[in-house]
């Protein structure tokens, strides 16, 4: 059997060629997250973790909780779940997350699409007339809107997101391929925007491969639901995922190199000279939340789909 440097059986083969056992994989994940937290979190911060009961946010929540407990003065920490009401998927991850938070004594706030918008995502998808607007566009816009509002109203100064290396590669490719370079200029490990209504978003897992998190999840959370969003395969993101994974097979290390180059060289250049495709930040005429257009994406979708104003 292939072995880790410690002599125990290897479970993960990194793109750099290193073989790692389960314990050392977890240790590495923790070191990644702790290093990011040390870099970006201040002693005055109040933390909210966007959690879903999935493998990534569960790992992140546990590591942030552990890091926080080791501090002399633990920071306020809570988890936020936006329940879209996707049948056959969300009810399982929600149940797992609720038990997880109860076990670790982490306050959890749950906000549902049904309460906030008057409809869950499945119903919204049925009334969608324009099939060019993907489920991810609709779901993503409302989830981000609600996450920001709930985190802000909870007094959070940092909103931690569990986006991993693969997520970020897919997002970057999507933004570039759709000509949305302006969006690419607003991402990164820490996204801060000059608006009091935006809670700065922070992604401690940005350099962690999804496969590593999957293996960590399989080894550490036996009851973790392994369900995937049923809408995933209709999305552009899924196409990017397959493309990036195939390319990684041919050129191991491509994903990490791409994100490191993006964070080090491309993002600073975009932030210094914002591209025209991004739009300037302003207040939405309908809801007053930050927007890159006169009417924010959430309100546009809400009006198109006949939903009530999000009320977190």
């Amino acid at each position, binding site marked *: *059997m*292939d072995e880790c440097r410690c002599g125990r*059986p*290897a*479970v*993960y*083969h990194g793109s750099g060629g290193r*073989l790692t056992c*389960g314990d050392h994989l977890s240790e590495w994940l923790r070191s990644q997250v702790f290093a990011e937290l040390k870099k970006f979190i201040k002693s005055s911060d109040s933390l909210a973790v*966007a959690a*879903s009961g*999935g*493998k*990534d*946010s569960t790992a992140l929540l546990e590591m942030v909780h552990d890091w926080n407990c080791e501090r002399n003065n633990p920071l306020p920490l809570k988890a936020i779940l936006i329940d879209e009401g996707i049948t056959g*998927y969300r009810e399982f*991850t929600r149940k797992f997350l609720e038990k997880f938070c109860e076990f670790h004594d982490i306050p959890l706030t749950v906000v549902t699409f049904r309460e906030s918008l008057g409809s869950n995502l499945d119903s919204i998808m049925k009334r969608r007339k324009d099939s060019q607007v993907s489920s991810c566009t609709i779901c993503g816009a409302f989830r981000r809107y609600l996450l920001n509002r709930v985190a802000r109203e909870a007094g959070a100064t940092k909103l931690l*997101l*569990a*986006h*991993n290396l*693969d*997520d970020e590669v897919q997002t970057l490719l999507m933004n570039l391929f759709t000509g949305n370079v302006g969006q690419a200029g607003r991402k990164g490990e820490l996204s801060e925007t000059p608006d009091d209504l935006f809670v700065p978003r922070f992604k401690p897992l940005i350099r962690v*491969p*999804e*496969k590593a998190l*999957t*293996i960590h999840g*399989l*080894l550490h959370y036996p009851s973790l639901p*392994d*369900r*995937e*969003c049923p809408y*995933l395969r209709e999305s552009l993101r899924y196409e990017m*995922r*397959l493309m990036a*994974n*195939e390319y*990684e*097979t041919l050129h191991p290390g491509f994903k990490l190199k791409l994100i490191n180059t993006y964070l080090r060289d491309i993002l600073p250049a975009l932030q210094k000279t914002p591209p025209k495709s991004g739009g300037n930040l302003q207040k939405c005429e309908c809801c007053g939340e930050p927007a890159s257009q006169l009417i924010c994406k959430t309100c546009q979708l809400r009006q198109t789909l006949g939903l009530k104003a999000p009320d977190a």
Partner: protein
Amino acid sequence: MKLEVELEKKKQTVELKARGTIKDLMDHLNLILDEYVPILNGTVVTELENLKTGDKVKFVRVWSGG
């Protein structure tokens, strides 16, 4: 060698040449490395692991959804 393979919750028997690794099996099944976690006889392994006849290999999809 004959292997029992479980993929996307479906089981099948696969025949490979006398010697091979999980990677060889994945290539035979057209599986992309970063899309699946191999579990050999109940244990998570890497794609470099050698196989022998009678082995049971389950491929767990790297599922999205943070």
